[in-house]
């Protein structure tokens, strides 16, 4: 499965469109990580726990998007975008969306 955030797969020609595919995940913060992040807030700098959490969540959302594209018979997803929305206190939705296509 080829994915790209441009409107084509470089060097390949799109032969068929299958429409928009999405993948999402809703995550809550881990209390242990939150306490560590609270301490880290005093001295500043990177909050490693959160960086990893968001990275994992984004990977999962992408995986789900890819699964949906595969079930449609597509072999690539183009124009992929990410979005984050905070749906409740301490929980956030991450989602990825793109256009499922077939390339040569």
């Amino acid at each position, binding site marked *: 499965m080829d994915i790209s*955030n441009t*409107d084509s797969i470089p060097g390949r020609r799109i032969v068929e469109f299958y429409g928009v595919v999405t993948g999402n995940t809703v995550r809550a913060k881990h209390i242990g990580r939150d306490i560590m992040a*609270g301490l880290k*807030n005093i001295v500043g*700098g*990177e*909050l490693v726990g959160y960086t990893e959490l968001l990275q994992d969540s984004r990977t999962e959302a992408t995986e789900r998007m890819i699964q949906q594209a595969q079930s449609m018979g597509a072999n690539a997803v183009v124009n992929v975008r990410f979005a984050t929305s905070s749906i409740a206190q301490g929980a*956030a939705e991450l989602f990825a969306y793109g256009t499922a296509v077939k390339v040569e």
Partner: protein
Amino acid sequence: MDGATFENLNLFLNFGLPLLLLMIAYFIGSMVERRHFSSIRKRENENRGYPVVSFDTMPDDWKVSESTMVAGNIVVSLDYFKRVIAGLRSLVGGRIKTYEPLLERARREALLRMTESAREQGYDAIFNVRLETSRLANSRGDGNGTAGVEMLAFGTAVKFASRFARTP
């Protein structure tokens, strides 16, 4: 415990402790920032010459054999000292200088992580690079508590068809 000791303890808890925290935050925070900046500069030098571009179409002379999407992210927070300074600054308005280096180094770090992951996977260049900033919700409803800013950099990494494919 006599009256004087109690008074002193009270004074310490009310003024001494925040002041101590401020000083610790100031020294460690600025040390962390200096180190981070020197690490960023060093790694940026190592990656000089590796094409990372924000065009949404590839330059014509790039002949590509393979592509994938790469991303890099980081969540950062301000230290206590800088948050206090920023809070004071918001009374009178104007430029909040303490926030600027934080956002700058987070953005450069996210770009570097994206670049490094593409290099590790054997890709030769990245195009259509996009940057996104999002604020993480506070853990408490009152606006206090843990908060951070996430920087995300992502783009399409490509492998060149041959070693000399870029020469026009």
